[in-house]
Each structure stands twice: as structure tokens, then as C-alpha cells.
């Protein structure tokens, strides 16, 4: 370990750092836990990084690590190992653990497990209400004392407008963020997939777009009136993108995230009834996918967040209606983002002979993609030391990836305890090579360091 903490120079990488606006080939010298130089020069061990992109480590605002309670699906250690393999240096696990993360004890436990594993920094999200029950506020102050700055009952919407308004108001004590699962539950009773042409053919209960948009509208109005901070998770509809766009123009303090599956997959994949494609909110239509891409491109949607939701095979290999919603995401987010959104001519020459598969539509520049994966989520949540800037004196929380490398996603090749990726067999472009957490390799040459 000591050797890995010594001085290393990454030579010849394309450094993409939205926080400083830097996008150039440079040598980056890391010594101990810090970056000590960016430019020309070399010191200590040299690691050839020509052809690689070096950026701040990724930050995921929305993951489920399942511990405590569902250690068969994931643990803090396995989930953060997946994070390291995916280029992440910080992740924010949601509060729907068992017991619920609605008091300081679980926050402490998750933080301790993360420290022991050492794969990534973890910033737990606290519950808004006790037991995710939607009725009594959780003791936010006790959790805030451990650094919690975002509260969410994710998975369960805060149904009561009164409780939601109280939570937004009370969280102002710390200028904390309230993130409400964007779903009006009265409109999604029995919902199994996106409500549309296909749900009517497949005979599955519909999850209408309006259920998301009604809830987001309510929350935007409440947050605006209070000057409180709202975060909209997993934006899935064109209408929600537009609502957030308008709210931002009005000055509402809102941030938003989109998941890779919502900008890469449509409800068409549900045809075979394989519950690996069941997710909440559901996969929607091409028009929604395009709107989410536009929202990322114009900054309406701040962050790409995976909603990494592990479920063991026996849970997913059930009848569609009985299988739980959720997909893995941490290890595939970069590749899906590059493949779907970033043109391969964006300074990244394709590998010779590799052709015939999908190429990104150029919705985002590489720098915008890095901002959405790292800089914006770190800033929006006030996560210090992550998201750049890449400059002398900063913590060396970095990722190096090969933007042109093509590979095929395999469900069995994962750090997660679960296998429920919707991308098994998909050819993608972009592979993580190294991840560094405060100067230490958490992933080296594509292998998680233990």
C-alpha cells in the first residue's frame, strides 16, 4: 500500500476537468493523497496514459447499497467495489435500507463499513420520514451531525403535500436538499411498465407519465415558494424535463438527475417480459429518451446518476408482476454515456477495425459528460474533494479511462453481488482503466484493488 501512496506521474493523458475548464493533454503528478502538479514533467513512478482520458473521479448521487438489511443483494463493500470499477470515487446510498437510514445509527454504520472497505467515499442519504412512512419527519439533525446533506424517502414518494412542505422548510436549517421520489402513487397503483401502446398490448398495468409530472410539479411549486432546495431523481419523461427547465428559468433551487437506462433504453425491451428491464420509473419512449438527452445537453438535468439497484437472481427470475424494479448501473454508466451520448470523434479516435456498432449521437461533448458524471453532482451536493478541479493541492480523486476501447457487457463480470444489468450482451465503447481515491488505486488496470 505504501508503494501505491508514493509519487506517480500519469503521462500524456487528455485531462478533462470541467471545474477548471481544462481540456488538454498534460502530465499529472500525484504524491501521497494529493495532486502536486499538472503540466509537463515527471516524478516518481511513470504510468503511461497516452490515449486515456483523465478526469475527476465520478460521483453518483443515487445508489442502493442494500446494507444493512439485504446483504444477499449487495453490501457496502461490494457496492463500493462496483463503484471503483466504474470510475466512481464517491457515491450516495439511499435510505431504504432495513432498518431504514432514518437515524444516526445507520448513518454511522454505513460510513464505518465504507471506511473499512476503502473503495469509495460514501455520503449516505437520510430518510425524510421515519421508516419511510411518510407521516413523521425523521430526526434530520442527528443525521446532519454526521454530514448528511440530502434527505430522501427514495422508492416511496412523500404523498402528503403538508409533510413535503414541512420537510423542505425544516431542511433549510442546514440548507439541505430534499429529494422526493417523483411519483404520484394514486396514479401508479398496479403499475408495471410505462403506460402506452405497448402496455396495452402486453396487458401490464400502466405507469403514466403524468404520475411523475404531477408530483414534480407539486414539489417544484412548494420548493419555489419556500426558497428551499429540491432534487428531482431519475427524470424519465419529456414533460418532467420541461417542468424543471421552466423552474430553473424562474429561479427555483432545483437540481435533477437522469439514469443511463432512461437515456439509452425504451419500453420496447419489455416485450419479452424479462424483469431485468423492470425499473421504477419505467423505461419510456424514444421521445422521452431524446428529451432526457436534451435536458442533459442544455444543463436542465445536472447529473447522471445510476440508481444502481441490485436484486439477487431469484428476485428477478420471477413473473414480471412479482419481480422488484431496479437495475445495476455503477459499472456500466461511463460506457453507456460515451456510447449513447458522446460522439466518438470528440477527440477520441476509434480503435482500428472496430466498426459497425452504435456510436454516440453527439448530444454531449466529452467535457459535458464528465461534468454530468462528476463535477455537477459533487458541486450540487457540496461533496468537497470530489468532482475536481484537477490542480496542485487538490485531493487525488481521479479516474483514467480509455474512451475508444470497445467491449461487451457481461452480466457475470461484475463486482456487485447481483447480476441484474439490462445491458448484458451490449457492445459499448469506453472502459475504466484506473480509479484513484486520495492518491491510492482503488481500480488498477481495470481490476479492483483490495
Amino acid at each position, binding site marked *: 500500500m505504501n508503494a501505491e501512496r508514493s509519487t506517480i506521474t500519469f503521462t500524456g493523458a487528455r485531462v478533462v476537468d470541467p471545474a477548471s475548464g481544462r481540456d488538454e493533454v498534460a502530465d499529472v503528478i500525484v504524491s501521497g493523497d494529493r495532486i502536486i502538479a499538472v503540466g509537463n514533467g515527471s516524478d516518481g513512478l511513470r504510468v503511461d496514459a497516452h490515449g486515456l482520458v483523465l478526469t475527476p473521479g465520478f460521483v453518483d448521487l443515487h445508489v442502493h447499497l442494500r446494507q444493512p438489511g439485504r446483504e444477499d443483494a449487495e453490501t457496502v463493500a461490494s457496492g463500493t467495489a462496483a463503484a471503483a470499477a466504474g470510475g466512481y470515487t464517491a457515491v450516495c446510498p439511499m435510505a431504504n435500507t432495513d432498518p431504514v437510514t432514518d437515524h444516526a445509527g445507520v448513518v454511522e454504520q454505513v460510513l464505518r463499513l465504507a471506511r473499512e472497505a476503502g473503495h469509495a467515499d460514501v455520503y449516505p442519504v437520510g430518510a425524510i420520514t421515519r421508516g419511510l412512512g411518510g407521516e413523521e419527519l425523521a430526526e434530520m439533525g442527528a443525521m446532519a451531525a454526521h454530514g448528511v446533506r440530502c434527505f430522501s424517502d427514495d422508492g416511496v414518494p412523500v404523498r402528503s403535500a403538508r409533510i413535503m412542505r414541512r420537510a423542505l422548510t425544516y431542511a433549510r436549517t442546514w440548507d439541505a436538499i430534499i429529494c422526493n421520489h417523483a411519483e404520484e402513487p394514486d396514479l401508479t397503483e398496479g403499475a*408495471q411498465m410505462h403506460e*402506452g*401502446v405497448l402496455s*396495452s*398490448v*402486453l*396487458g*401490464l*398495468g400502466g405507469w403514466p407519465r403524468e404520475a411523475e409530472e404531477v408530483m414534480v410539479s407539486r414539489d417544484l411549486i412548494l420548493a419555489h415558494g419556500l426558497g428551499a432546495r429540491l432534487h428531482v431523481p431519475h427524470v424519465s419523461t419529456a414533460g418532467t424535463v420541461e417542468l424543471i427547465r421552466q423552474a430553473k428559468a424562474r429561479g427555483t433551487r432545483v437540481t435533477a438527475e437522469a439514469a443511463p437506462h432512461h437515456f439509452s433504453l425504451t419500453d420496447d425491451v419489455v416485450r*419479452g*417480459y*424479462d424483469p431485468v428491464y423492470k425499473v421504477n420509473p419505467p423505461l419510456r419512449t424514444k421521445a422521452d429518451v431524446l428529451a432526457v438527452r436534451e435536458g442533459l445537453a442544455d444543463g436542465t438535468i445536472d447529473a447522471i446518476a445510476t440508481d444502481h439497484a441490485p436484486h439477487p437472481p*431469484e428476485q428477478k*427470475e*420471477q*413473473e*414480471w*408482476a*412479482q419481480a422488484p424494479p431496479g437495475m445495476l448501473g455503477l459499472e456500466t454508466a461511463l460506457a453507456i454515456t460515451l456510447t449513447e451520448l458522446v460522439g466518438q470523434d470528440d477527440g477520441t479516435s476509434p480503435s482500428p477495425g472496430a466498426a459497425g456498432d452504435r456510436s454516440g449521437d453527439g448530444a454531449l461533448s466529452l467535457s459535458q459528460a464528465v461534468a454530468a458524471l462528476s463535477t455537477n453532482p459533487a458541486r450540487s451536493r457540496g461533496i468537497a474533494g470530489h468532482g475536481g478541479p484537477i490542480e496542485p493541492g487538490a485531493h487525488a480523486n481521479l479516474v483514467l479511462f480509455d474512451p475508444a476501447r470497445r467491449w461487451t457487457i457481461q452480466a457475470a463480470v461484475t463486482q456487485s453481488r447481483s447480476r441484474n444489468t439490462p445491458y448484458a450482451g451490449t457492445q459499448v465503447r469506453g472502459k475504466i482503466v484506473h480509479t484513484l481515491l486520495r492518491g491510492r488505486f482503488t481500480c488498477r488496470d481495470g481490476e479492483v484493488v483490495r
Partner: protein
Amino acid sequence: MITHLLSIDDLTPEQITEVLDTAAGFKDVALRPIKKVPTLRGRTICNLFYEDSTRTRISFEIAEKRLSADVINFSAKGSSVSKGESLKDTALTLQAMGVDAIVIRHSASGAPQQLTGWVDAKVLNAGDGWHQHPTQALLDLYTIRERLGRLEGLRAAVVGDVVHSRVARSVVRGLVAMGVEVTVVGPPTLVPTSVETWGATVTHDLDETLPKIDVLYLLRVQSERMHRQFFPSEREYARLWGVGRDRLDKLPDDAIVLHPGPMNRGVEITADVADAPNAVIAEQVTNGIAVRMSCLYLMLGGEA
């Protein structure tokens, strides 16, 4: 030959015609003193029923026995399912026991399709959730063709709760495939907006539709739907979309009335309509056996 029968959409119009023609031959078996043919002797068929069903299960069982197949009945209540065994494990168990075909009824849409990924046996969907009930559509097509002499060019109305009906999904697609002009009628809360993509037109006015059709297909309306506020009361449903003597009289003289059963007399259909000479509800049940024999024969009969 048919591999699996999961949805009426799995069949081409030519295949549907083949099923109906073959069924006509099997219908005679019921008229013989010994109602049995040796066609599927030595074949094992499992009726895997995860949902209560009387008529469909009995109809399949009679069809299978008349074809001389070995029949195993497995219903969710008296099996290891109640001890928590998954559909997949149950399927793998049946696979290990070497069944040739599985007839499955399940409350979850898509369960029969999932089953095909787990077993080598042929799978016949006997009704899954709100999705499909293909043999129901086939027996309806058979009954209409037998009564009216043809399918192509006929006009039909399918009336009632389409949203929650696997019968509607199958029957509408089957009628459309065979060249029948289909109008779907019902309260907007129970008719999916995308029904037009199935090849049918939609109206909410039953009275205007009745004089223009050859086939009136009434769907079962469950009182559960009323409790969920899809319509205000059974009385109002009956007034707007139910069929009684008055509405029966608006049909052309040779038009026929079908219902998949079980009926809610007094809601979607009155007793005098159900028992009227142009109601063919009992014939549907009779024909169901021959049509199911035909499907099983076309799935299993060609292999020896």
C-alpha cells in the same frame, strides 16, 4: 406446426384457418359412442393452473383426454407453490419429469412466455393476466365461422372492459387478423387509448353501433372495477353498455351474440339475451374442446 401458443398474434391467418379446419374434424369425436382418438397416446401434458378456473381447465382436460394424452393437473393451491416454490423451479421440475407440453394459466401477464425460456416442453397459454387467452379467441372464431359461414368481411363489436381483459386482447387481434372489421365499445376508462393500434376503431355509443354489426361480443365486467371507480355503478353500466332485450332488437336479424363467460347477468347481459336463440354462448363452450384438441394436435401431433 405450432411451437408455442402464447398469443393469438403468434399465428398467421393461414395457421388460424388450419386450427379451425382441424377443429372441425375433431368436433365429430364428441358425437361418437367412444369419444376418444389415439392421436397423443404416450404424450404427457401438464395443466399448470395458478389461477382459479373451472371451464378452461375442464375444457383442456377433456380435450387432452379425448386425444389420449396422459394428463397431469397441477394447481397452485395443492402444490409446493404454497410452500413458496418459484415458477422457474416448478418449471424445471416439470422439465426434469419430461412433460411434452405445459398448459398454463397464470395471473401474471407474460408468465407463459417466461416459461418458454426455462423448459423444452411446448407451452400453451390458457390465459395470462390481462395479456392473452389465445384458445378463447380461436374458439370464438370457430363459433362465428360455423354460424355465419365466414369471417372475412364481417363486422363485430367488442363491448366492455377491454383494459383488464385478456379475452379482449386475443379476440380483437384474432378478428382483425381474419378480416373482420372490429369496433371496440365501452366506457373510456375501460378502453385503452391505443386500441386503434390493434386495428380496431373505438366508439363509446353502443346504440349507434348495434344495427351495423354481425357479431356482438360482450365482455365480462367485474364488480371490482366499479369499486375502483372505472364506472359509477352497475346500474349505470347496464344502462349505457349492457345489453338487454331492447338492444338485442337493434341488431340485424342474423347477428349473433357471444360471451366468454362467466356472465354477470343483469350487468353486461340480461338473462333473456343470454338465453336468446341468437346467443351462441353454449356453442362457444362446446367448440372450445374441439379447438383445444386442434391446437394440441398441431403442437404435438406431428412428432412421434
